[in-house]
């Protein structure tokens, strides 16, 4: 019995070779991690997948496999695809709220703009006498310039 076996080789009850593809990612103190992955994917499939990946990607691959395996064990029908559904629905709801909010902003913006125009028109709306007065005033202003 090799006391230095990784969790995978312990689980599979075999010798753990020095070049074991599993050992860097399945420390011997966490059997459950490999057990979950093995239950859903099988050791052979996981080994093939890891061997096809560059070494620097394997840790992330094992983490994602464990996550998906765990989701599948917890929710056998949908697994982690259930999360995809949920987030998609949330995106749809958020997009709908965004569209509604922007529509309200457009209405208020239009109302505010219209109110401003009316307000400006009331200040400068000239009467018949004030037009003439305005013209005289402008000529005088030019004189000062």
């Amino acid at each position, binding site marked *: 019995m090799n006391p230095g076996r990784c969790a995978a080789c312990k689980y599979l009850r075999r010798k753990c070779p020095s070049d074991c593809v599993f050992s860097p990612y399945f420390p011997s103190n966490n059997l459950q991690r490999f057990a979950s992955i093995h239950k859903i994917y099988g050791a052979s499939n996981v080994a093939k*997948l890891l061997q*096809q990946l560059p070494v620097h990607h394997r840790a992330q691959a094992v983490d994602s496999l464990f*996550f998906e395996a*765990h989701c*599948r064990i917890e929710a056998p029908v949908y*697994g*982690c695809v259930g999360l995809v559904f949920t987030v998609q629905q949330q995106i749809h709801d*958020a997009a709908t709220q965004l569209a509604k909010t922007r529509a309200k902003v457009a209405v*208020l*913006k239009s109302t505010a703009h219209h109110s401003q125009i009316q307000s400006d028109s009331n200040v400068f709306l000239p009467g018949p006498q004030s037009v003439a007065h305005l013209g005289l005033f402008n000529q005088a202003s030019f004189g000062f310039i």
Partner: protein
Amino acid sequence: MRSQEPRSSASCAACKLLKRRCTPNCIFAPYFRSDEPKKFAKVHKVFGASNVSKILIEVPEEQREETVNSLAYEAEARLRDPVYGCIGAIALLQRKMIELQHDLALARARLARYAATTSSAIISSDRVSMGPFGEFQVPAASCGGFIDSFSLNSYEVNQDAHMYDFSQIPYV
């Protein structure tokens, strides 16, 4: 003695690939039709026929079609992105969600400014809380809260990751 039933036309896609006789109570036959060989091939490559069979046996019969479809989706995702699989798709969706949350916050702030300015009564009465995801929390309860460990940064680190559109689930 050969069976009177022609084997090749009666075999489901799974039994064809596994080169075995497709029995009348084959667990795969209702879900892996012979005209969809790639579907089972992908599922078999990622999960293995034996594991798929065990998963199907564990779920009620009326839910097996959904189970097979979700397994096919996961297998497809894993084959496209061997490092992140389905997690990559979820990370992408989460990124989109964060962008939408940001845009929604900006729009609401603008709405509040206009409402205050015009003293309009057109204010949304259905405000939601604005936490990190607002009310749009990615449910982690069913998967033990593992989703937090897959930050968007860790997804972006994988420069070889193939970005694909999973907004359309094949069977929805």
